[in-house]
């Protein structure tokens, strides 16, 4: 027998699903290719969103130690979606409808006991349909949406269920960890938890808080371990983040936050009219009125008022006035002030709904929320960055022609994101593209290693544009050039200053006859494989030596059997890292299924651990002029009786950390579900 409250909840869930199907209906043909959107165009490639980041060594560009990958947890949880036998555009559509419906339902479910159903429905929608979330969808920050839903869960768990017990602390840790799939939430969730305990001191226990934080640390150990073990350094990552920042991203005026348009870098003000902005202002003003008129039941609105103030400071970038020792190290993490925007609106909405007690106040709050919601509904349905995936597939399928299974990199032309599909429309506002200008989601999911074309990586690309000299590619194991100039136009000129990207380069980088010019300037240097795919004649293999064979046994290990070593030299054509180690072992008789032939032959084979030495003789290595790994062996270490194993040492600890993370996640999640079911049955 379905009870009345259950019927109400089911009806609300159904209503949310219907609303979101309507809101996202246009995206069923494809949404993305804008800003940070990354999603494959071809069926079956979506699981790569998880698998590409799971290793301790990332293949992007010339390779790098995996550093900052909290989102792997999010991608892991979404794997069931990614393996659905659907075209990618339907997977995104489904993902958006399901995640937004569940998020809104979560808010409604926790609110409808405290406030009337209309308020609960409106807030349930407005928490997910508002200007800040529009910006997140415009920018393709899907991981953020996942983190945000977990964060909303964390807030309501604290308010409704948290008790100073071990079980509660474990659940709190789990929700905290889930919210931290977007790294900024490590800070945001901590602020929320601290504020909650400030207001509910009787619930605080240092021991239990430490337990919650331990759960967070263990669930995220798979990437935190990269920092703990020294594979990557915090200062390097921080510097990288700081280098890619700009003032519009970091700071904004308070009045922009009050009218819910936030920093200029969010572009919200270009989509929301003056009327919509005044609706935002009215909502903020209402919150102030309610604060001034507040009644005796203060804890919940007080909690949200406190949160609102803190998140406004973060969204405005005002905390940058303080150069607090140690704490200022996390500033680069919070550089994108827009990350706090959804939390400002969430706190605002919850403060308003909890503080409105009189009929007039409730009516006014419903009206203000409904206005913000109505403007946002119009913007969501009309302005999401659409791109036709079917058309993209038709244009890009020709590039799937290469069936070379050896180890190499490709470079795609034109260089430098963002990329615009030439054949698809683009929404331009005040001279800035607002759709159809994003990362190259084709090359990222090509299943091949590639030279990173992001605007921060300008070395080899600049050399090619300046000199048309193919020898620039030689050190980097580039075997193929994909000419995408008929499909893509680089829009880097819209985002880079002329000091970095001259008019001459802009012209050369969007030249559909660029490859012809390369062929002309480098006779015999390129040969055509198929339309728009060219092989590089002077290609050098990933493992380089005078003559010999090598096997790539995994993403982080190579086995090398040289016939001849000129100067005892072995080169691994990947970014230098001290974690790469070469060890000597007795040569084994391995099968060789040739995948690439030359002085250096690459093989596929099996049974690679046949002669793996238990005690290794490890040789140190150096960085060459191109930033690659080079081992110089002395004559006693060279001979036909030896083979060499090159492996990335942090990988072993990374695997252990992964197991710890997975075990903690599954055990705490199982415990939480079992306990909640037991409680539910008991009731």
């Amino acid at each position, binding site marked *: 027998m379905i009870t009345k409250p259950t019927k109400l909840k089911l009806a609300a869930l159904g209503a949310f699903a219907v609303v979101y199907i309507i809101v996202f209906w246009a995206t069923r043909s494809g949404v993305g290719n804008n800003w940070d959107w990354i999603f494959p165009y071809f069926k079956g490639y979506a699981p790569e969103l998880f698998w590409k980041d799971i290793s301790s060594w990332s293949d992007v560009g010339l390779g790098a130690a995996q550093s900052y990958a909290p989102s792997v947890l999010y991608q892991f949880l979404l794997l069931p979606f990614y393996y659905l036998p659907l075209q990618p555009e339907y997977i995104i559509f489904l993902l958006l409808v399901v995640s937004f419906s569940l998020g809104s339902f979560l808010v409604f479910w926790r609110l409808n006991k405290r406030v009337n159903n209309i308020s609960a429905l409106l807030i349930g929608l407005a928490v997910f349909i508002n200007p800040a979330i529009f910006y997140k969808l415009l920018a393709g920050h899907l991981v953020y949406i996942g983190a945000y839903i977990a964060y909303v869960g964390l807030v309501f768990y604290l308010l409704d269920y948290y008790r100073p017990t071990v079980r509660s602390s474990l659940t709190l840790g789990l929700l905290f960890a889930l919210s931290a799939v977007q790294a900024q939430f490590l800070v945001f969730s901590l602020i929320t938890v601290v504020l909650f305990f*400030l*207001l509910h001191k009787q619930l605080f226990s240092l021991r239990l808080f430490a337990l919650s934080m331990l759960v967070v640390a263990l669930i995220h150990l798979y990437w935190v371990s990269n920092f703990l073990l020294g594979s990557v350094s915090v200062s390097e990552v921080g510097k990288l983040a700081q280098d890619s920042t700009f003032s519009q991203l970091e700071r904004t*005026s*308070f*009045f922009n936050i*009050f*009218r819910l348009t936030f920093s200029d870098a969010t572009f919200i003000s270009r989509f929301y009219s003056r009327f919509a902005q*005044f609706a935002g*202002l009215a909502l*903020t*003003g209402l919150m*102030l*009125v309610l*604060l*001034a*008129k*507040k*009644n*005796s039941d*203060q804890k919940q609105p*007080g909690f949200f*008022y*406190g949160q609102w*103030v803190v998140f*406004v*400071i973060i969204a405005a970038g*005002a*905390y940058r*006035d*303080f150069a607090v020792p140690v704490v200022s190290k996390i500033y680069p993490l919070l550089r994108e002030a827009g990350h706090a925007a959804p939390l400002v609106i969430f706190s605002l909405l919850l403060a308003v709904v909890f503080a409105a007690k009189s009929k007039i106040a409730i009516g006014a709050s419903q009206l203000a929320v409904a206005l913000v919601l109505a403007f946002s509904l119009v913007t969501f349905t009309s302005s999401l960055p659409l791109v036709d995936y079917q058309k993209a597939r038709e244009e890009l399928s020709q590039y799937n022609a290469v069936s070379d299974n050896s180890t190499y990199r490709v470079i795609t032309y034109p260089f430098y994101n963002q990329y615009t599909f030439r054949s698809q429309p683009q929404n331009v506002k005040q001279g800035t593209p607002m759709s159809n200008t994003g990362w190259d989601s084709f090359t990222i999911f090509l299943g091949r290693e590639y030279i990173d074309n992001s605007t921060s990586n300008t070395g080899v690309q600049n050399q090619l544009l300046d000199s048309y000299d193919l020898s620039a590619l030689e050190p980097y194991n580039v075997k193929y050039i994909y000419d995408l100039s008929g499909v893509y136009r680089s829009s880097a000129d819209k985002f880079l200053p002329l000091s970095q990207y001259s008019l001459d380069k802009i012209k050369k980088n969007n030249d559909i006859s660029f490859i012809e010019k390369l062929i002309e300037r480098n006779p015999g240097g390129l040969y055509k494989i198929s339309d728009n795919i060219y092989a590089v004649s002077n290609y050098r293999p990933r493992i380089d030596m005078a003559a010999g064979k090598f096997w790539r046994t995994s993403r982080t290990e190579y086995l090398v059997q040289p016939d001849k070593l000129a100067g005892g030299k072995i080169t691994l054509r990947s970014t230098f890292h001290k974690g790469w180690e070469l060890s000597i072992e007795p040569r084994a008789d391995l099968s060789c299924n040739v995948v690439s032939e030359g002085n250096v032959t690459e093989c596929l084979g099996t049974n690679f651990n046949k002669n793996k030495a238990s005690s290794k003789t490890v040789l140190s290595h150096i960085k060459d002029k191109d930033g690659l790994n080079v081992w110089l062996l002395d004559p006693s270490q060279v001979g036909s009786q030896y083979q060499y194993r090159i492996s990335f040492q942090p990988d072993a600890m990374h695997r252990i950390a992964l197991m710890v993370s997975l075990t903690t996640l599954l055990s705490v999640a199982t415990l939480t579900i079992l306990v909640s079911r037991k409680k539910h049955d008991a009731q």
Partner: protein
Amino acid sequence: MKDLVNLIKRELAKSENQIVIDAVIATIAFCVCLYTGWGLIRSSIVAFLAFHFISPIPSKKLASWAFGVFVVMALTLAMGRKEFAEIFSQAAFAMLIVAVLTYFVRHDN
């Protein structure tokens, strides 16, 4: 000097309008700090401390002042005077910080 201050305070208190004294103290503290280049947040904290230790203003009252300044900000924004709106928005937010901090410390109404 201390006696003089106490005397002035007592005299002012006789005016039976404690709110005026509070406003004067907070505004002076805030403006002096801001003028000396302490920045918005630090100035707000000093203003808060001034309120907390000197003035017994309820957070509710502070919030109503913040709302007043907020309305002025909205009007200047509507008139397209962004430079003034910027100043008023900072002032409104500073008052709000003080109101919320006061609330958090005192749990008053």
